[in-house]
């Protein structure tokens, strides 16, 4: 059956089926996961792949996870060729130097069998609560080597023909702080993958393997063609945008430049990070899987979300990631805090494209998802880790003012209700407020950041703070003003105020307070 003779209705029906399967997998995973960052921040994603590692469909989840299973699945099938896989096998990995994003994100893969061969792959990625390393939550802001960030798992066969390798599970359990939660969330991933595999097998039984495979390949071809058409609609040209991270979390006085050159030539888009900082000591280095998510987001945002979200969309995109740089580090650079880098580089890509599409792209958003993690022990001795992701504002645009305190671009995470936080950990939240006046001025002002204030009820606890935009303001557009930079400090119960220069790991004692305000976004248009 050739592509030209495929029936257009069946192609569309299969596309809807694939997306529904990915959503069903996401639902299975989210409903039974226990990790708070999964349940409140949607930090987990499900995808279906062709046996060659091409994405067929991805669930709607945190855009930071867009396409991020691509390198992981690619690595797993290189290590374990699909011809050698058997029904009931499960594969997993998390190593950022082997296709992963950062250590808490564990990727899991289940092969889909029909007519006694692998016809597709069903995969999930989920941010686990803890994978060991320096600090609870496995995102130590002062890590300088991957070895401090937790347990690295290369591509492994976790189960052979349905039998889970107990030795692998024992090694993991010995190296992490909350093994029960890990096991639970891993089962949530396994359930999701086996659900996806069962659904695809049903599809193969209904349509026959060969016709189904032809229709799956056609999905990819159509998405590629639609994406190329969307890129062709952007004027050709080359645009450059320079930005920087406050610091790498270790060398606090040294900014980390992010430089991007975006080129549209006909139906291809090249995103080149040449000129960006060499890899740094602190953990803001981004493994390529994370950088790809930012590039995919920008491409999707300008190409239009109607285009099916599969591997065909990525084919017109060329990414240039200089080796040994902050966007493609070499061992043993630390990578846990890549979110800040991905947000800033996504902003930079959009900032460059704004020169070609000034009416469609807003002023810079706050460029930050501040990640705050508290870990310690409750009165009964049980350990806890709670993680919060806190946004800034969205940028003003041709269409209207920005929004106060809202997740933007690659992030779309829920905050933690104060009532949940206080129920889960010995903390008291004193303030949850819009940081008034922090949005950039403009015909359409930028959105304001968020103020939060916490008190420690029972110390000591370990605080991990990963902020951004403390030292660099988000820019306005077309004459609009910049957003106000972020600020954060600790008020010690014993007296004294300690400024946080964007990133910090420290110990808080009973009565200490953390006060933080995230950045406002850029305004649009010169204010009167």
């Amino acid at each position, binding site marked *: 059956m050739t592509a030209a003779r495929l029936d257009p209705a069946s192609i569309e029906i299969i596309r809807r089926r694939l997306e529904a399967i990915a959503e069903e997998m996401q639902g299975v995973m989210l409903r039974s996961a226990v990790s708070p960052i999964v349940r409140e921040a949607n930090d987990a994603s499900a995808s279906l792949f062709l046996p060659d590692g091409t994405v067929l469909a991805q669930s709607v989840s945190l855009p930071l996870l867009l396409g991020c299973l691509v390198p992981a699945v690619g690595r797993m099938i290189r290590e374990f060729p699909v011809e050698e896989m058997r029904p009931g096998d499960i594969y997993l990995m998390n190593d950022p130097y082997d296709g992963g994003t950062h250590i808490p994100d564990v990727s899991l893969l289940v092969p889909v069998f029909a007519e006694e061969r692998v016809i597709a792959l069903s995969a999930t990625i989920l941010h686990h609560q803890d994978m060991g390393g320096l600090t609870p939550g496995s995102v130590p802001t002062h890590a300088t080597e991957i070895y401090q960030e937790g347990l690295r798992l290369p591509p492994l066969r976790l189960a052979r023909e349905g039998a889970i390798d107990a030795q692998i599970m024992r090694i993991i359990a010995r190296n992490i702080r909350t093994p029960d939660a890990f096991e639970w969330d891993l089962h949530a991933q396994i359930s999701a993958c086996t659900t996806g595999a069962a659904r695809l097998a049903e599809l193969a039984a209904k349509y026959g393997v060969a016709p189904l495979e032809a229709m799956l390949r056609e999905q990819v071809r159509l998405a590629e063609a639609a994406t190329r058409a969307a890129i062709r609609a952007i004027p050709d040209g080359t645009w450059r945008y320079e930005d920087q991270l406050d610091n790498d979390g270790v060398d606090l006085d040294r900014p980390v430049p992010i430089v991007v050159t975006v080129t549209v030539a006909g139906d291809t888009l090249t995103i080149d990070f040449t000129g960006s900082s060499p890899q740094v000591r602190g953990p803001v280095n981004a493994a390529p899987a994370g950088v790809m998510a930012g590039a995919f987001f920008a491409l999707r945002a300008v190409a239009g979300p109607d285009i099916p979200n599969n591997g065909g969309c990525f084919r017109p995109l060329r990414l240039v990631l200089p080796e040994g740089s902050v966007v493609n580090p070499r061992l043993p650079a630390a990578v846990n805090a890549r979110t800040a880098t991905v947000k800033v580089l996504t902003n930079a890509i959009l900032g460059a494209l704004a020169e070609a599409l000034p009416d*469609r792209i807003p002023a810079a958003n706050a460029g930050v998802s501040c990640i705050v993690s508290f870990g310690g022990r409750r009165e009964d001795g049980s350990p806890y880790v709670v993680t919060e992701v806190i946004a800034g504002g969205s940028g003003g645009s041709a269409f209207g003012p920005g929004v106060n305190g809202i997740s933007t671009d690659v992030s779309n995470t829920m905050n933690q209700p104060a009532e949940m936080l206080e129920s889960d950990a010995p903390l008291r939240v004193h303030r949850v407020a819009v940081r008034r006046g922090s949005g950039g001025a403009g015909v359409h002002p930028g959105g304001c950041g968020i103020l939060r204030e916490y008190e420690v009820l029972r110390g000591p606890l370990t605080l991990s703070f990963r902020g951004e935009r403390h030292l660099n303001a988000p820019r306005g557009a077309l004459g609009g003003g910049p957003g106000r930079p972020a600020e954060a400090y600790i008020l010690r119960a014993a007296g004294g105020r300690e400024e946080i220069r964007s990133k910090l790991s420290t110990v808080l004692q009973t009565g200490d307070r953390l006060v933080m305000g995230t950045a406002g976004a850029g305004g649009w248009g010169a204010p009167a």
Partner: protein
Amino acid sequence: MSIEIGIDIGGTFTDAVCRDEDGAFRLLKVPSTPDDPARAVGIALDRILPGAAAEVARFLHGTTVATNAILEGKAAKVGLITTAGFADVLELGRMTRASNYDLVFGPQTPVALVPAERRLEVAERIGPDGAVLTPLDEAGVAAAARALAGQGVQAVAIAFLFAFLNPAHERRAREVVEEVAPGLAISLSSEVDPAVREYERSCATVFDAALKPVLDAYLGRIEAMLASRGVPAPLQVMHSRGGLLGAAAARSRPIRLTLSGPSAAAIGAASVLREAGCPAGISIDIGGTSADIAVIEGGMPVLRGDGSVAGFPMRVPTADVLAIAAGGGSIAWLDAAGGLHVGPHSAGADPGPVCYGRGGTQPTVLDASVVLGLVDPARFAGGTLALDAAAAETAIRERIAGPLGLSVEAAAIAIHRITNAALTEAVRRMTIGRGSDPRALPLVPAGGGGGLHAAAIAEELGMTRLVLPVAPGVLAATGLLEAPLEHDASMGFFRAVESIPEEALRDAIAALTARCAAAMARDGVEADATEVSADASFIGQGHTLEVAIPAGSETPGADLRAGFIAAHRAAYGHTRDAPVRLVTLRVVQRARPRGAALIASGAAAGPAGERRAWLGGDFATAHIQRGLAPGESLSGPAILETVDSTLLVPPGWRLTATATHLLMERVAP
């Protein structure tokens, strides 16, 4: 002779049904009057009242007034009094945006309803165990109330942190506001939505308060209308759970009306299923722009606790209806790569499909139905709108068939297949996606488009039975007649059930039951069923499962724990012996109506010729029939055309009429 009247307001039509004691009924549709919805109710009432208003024993009403007030920003001016430090919770919400890939978007929270100057803070604090940490600053409450009154608010919402565990501060604050600013509508978060998560609870509370003046005025008009026509029956309205409330109860908790429309239709489907002897099934109500899918179990619609209106969370129990953008007006289009898609954009009612001849140029599902011979252009909508078949064909030829190199008919078939697939995906999500097997369930099609797509959906999912109401076009109105009078009460806990003494749980259940019974008594009835249930999770999980607790249990805590552990395995395939968190405890009481089922009028219309049509597979010559008397049957290929809907009977299906419903069964694969 006593009669019952149900009037339901829909987006396009206001439907009325009048039923007498033996089940004979009349129905009518009048155009809705969105600028003043009560006007259409009055017109419908005058036309359906049989002249003997004094015989009306029940008057039941489904209204979109609460929902529309939210959608159109027409709720009353409202202020919020909240815990010091938390006035912006309502603006910040959960920090998420509805669309992942949009670069430009507006506020996602009700800032327009309650802007910053009307969100005032007072000192007070209750901890996560319900203990008072900071006493209520009563002078602060009084000052806030005065300030809000000075801004001209009509309603005040009071939402304090952890009030669902200890409502004392909210209750005292209400007393203070009543003293300082008498006459304002007041809602407390601990009463509107006693459950954890301050944004969702506050959101429900401000909408409840802001809807009170709107509902009070509206229900007052309907009551006056009934009185002026001499109708003695008290006004009862449908609430989102799918039950009826007396007007007084509706006034006191108007947020309960916000998601009532789909619930009424689901109740209607449940009652048709009951007549057919089926306790469970799936209903699919297909209109011009969207389709609603609901699940019926145990004779009642399955509920959910986390609905939304206009994108705002509306945490009230409601029929768990999945609405998707697929209907007769859904537009078929080609993407830049030549891929064929249908929807989500709709031609709506204006300009409508190309065949309406009102200026629509983009081919729709209805245009494809015309091309495929499924809809008779001369008899659409009871013959009130003559369809332009040639225009439909031209649009499909030029926009779809030509570019794809297909015949017009092949393109129309492709459009139908894609639409059927979209509808099938939605039914699949509500069944297989939740662990139930659709093959064992009957499908209840409703709405103008239900009968055009139901058989195709059923075939795809291996379902073999369709149950059709005698009046599929007015399912929500007939649902009003079948809905129970119902009250519920709940209490928030958010702690391990193992840490709560059984006696305390028994007392809580008794208190909630007493509250329900008192509410039933105020509506003048006695409950014939009491249900106790709890929302629970394992500690650390965000999603809850609802678990039934046997009424009268001596060990409700142990029952909940065992029930939850089993329910978790059933829902997710795995479970564990770990502490179980009781999130919300709930009691529901209901009293079922005793009316007869709707009885079809029974006039056989006989065959009305035949026509070439596509009913799946190849084109066939279909028998056309305009009615079916009880006991008669019809085998596919056939099309049953009634005043308000069209039903396709494909080859291999057999349709049989009874007095109360139609049954369509698959007799050959």
